[in-house]
């Protein structure tokens, strides 16, 4: 499954899922690391639901890690944590990275089991297939396998 605007060659933002035995891989693309992280979170949401998500509630998070790849895992795990404890789904993300610290804003709503029909609850982002890199054309990609 691929995101609506997956077109890394054009320098635009997008996301995709990739196969993994029992779990699923999420990968975001964008013109910056921040954009790629935001799109990776979009891919995470798409693991749960393909339904439209209202951005009526705003949640701020912060996390840190010694390097950019571990920071991606921390970011996705922070989103998963908020999804789990608030029983929410998020449809829009804003990321700001300063050194080893990430500040994120999530917009979403409470899970509606009828409307969102959640396919699963992501349990955690992992270090499997973890990669944050800048590819040809200057497009950043950020992805890893998510345990579901």
């Amino acid at each position, binding site marked *: 499954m691929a995101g609506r605007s997956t077109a890394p060659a054009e320098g635009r933002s997008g996301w995709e*899922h990739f196969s993994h035995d029992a779990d*699923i891989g999420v990968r975001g693309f964008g013109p910056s690391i921040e954009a790629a992280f935001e799109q990776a979170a979009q891919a995470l949401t798409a693991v749960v639901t393909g339904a439209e998500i209202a951005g009526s509630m705003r949640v701020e998070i912060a996390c840190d890690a010694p390097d950019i790849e*571990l920071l991606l895992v*921390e970011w996705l*795990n922070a989103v998963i944590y908020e999804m789990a404890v608030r029983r929410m789904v998020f449809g829009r993300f804003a990321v700001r990275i300063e050194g080893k610290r990430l500040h994120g804003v999530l917009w979403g709503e409470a899970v509606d089991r009828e409307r969102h029909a959640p396919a*699963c609850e992501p349990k955690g982002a992992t*270090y499997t297939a973890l990669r944050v890199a800048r590819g040809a054309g200057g497009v950043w990609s950020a992805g890893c396998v998510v345990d*579901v």
Partner: protein
Amino acid sequence: MDPARFTQVDAMTWRIEPVDAMRVPAISDLERIEESGVAAGARPHCVSDRAKERQRREMGTLGSGNHYLEVQAVAEVFDVKVATAFGLEKEKVVVTIHCGSRGLGHQIGTEFLKDMVIAAGSAGIALPDRELACAPINSEIGQRYLGAMRAGINCALANREILGHYARRVIQHYFPASSMDLLFDVSHNTCKVETHVVAGKARELFVHRKGATRAFGPGHPSLPDSLRDVGQPVLIGGSMGTESYVLVGDVTSETKAFSSACHGAGRAMSRHAALKRWSGRKIIDDLALEGILIRSPSTRGVAEEAPHAYKDVSAVVAAAEQAGLARRVARMRPLICIKG
């Protein structure tokens, strides 16, 4: 029972009183839960507040992915003597629960994984893969991890006991004359301290089982009296549309795999690929024609768990038997599969 009665600390140390005003957990359950229902050495204070917060609203819930509660009928008995000891006979109905500590265990794992990646670097341990983050078992972080992980095991035991209670309540509502005794409750994805013979010498080992379950053979001292002569029940799930099996631990499993066996059929195909191939709605309709009812909040989730996304469980258990890990006792066919 109100799941809130299992407070965070209570659940992680999980002590069960013989007489429970809420009638659960039944005392007879205790001897049929590994380690008599409580993992020793749990240290709830080593579990972060975030992990506890994640657990707070999840006790008594099944979760998604490959977790399930299934009502099954015994379709075939391979070993009458052991089946009788297990309380299984043809056409008897059983309820099987596959579920763990929910988000708490993952939060514990996630947090310690990061800490150990950093600690490994500081300790001069070169990790070939960051997923293999580790720490010396007797280090401060190693001991903290063991304490937290054992607390997670106890949460899983408590969670399954709550789910079992709800299942009993429903069954007894519709079939008041029925009774539902616990066959066995065993965790997987754990690390356990066990004694095994290595090169002719009994040694205390830390046995990690991932995608595997304990499979103690007959005579193992940790088995309750009612099971010691026959061995530990080994529960192997198939898929929502195919059979599952009950096996019994074999003595040969001790030398072959430190008394371990597989715990499920295993996936033959990724979720991603399954989603492309099958429609959840059609799977539900097709299985209904076979007399199998599926209850899931998501048809997409059903597609990801499609019966043919899993390996042939009959072949898997035959391999386990031929490998000397566990022997087949009974085959169960699914009647109702509930996904969380």
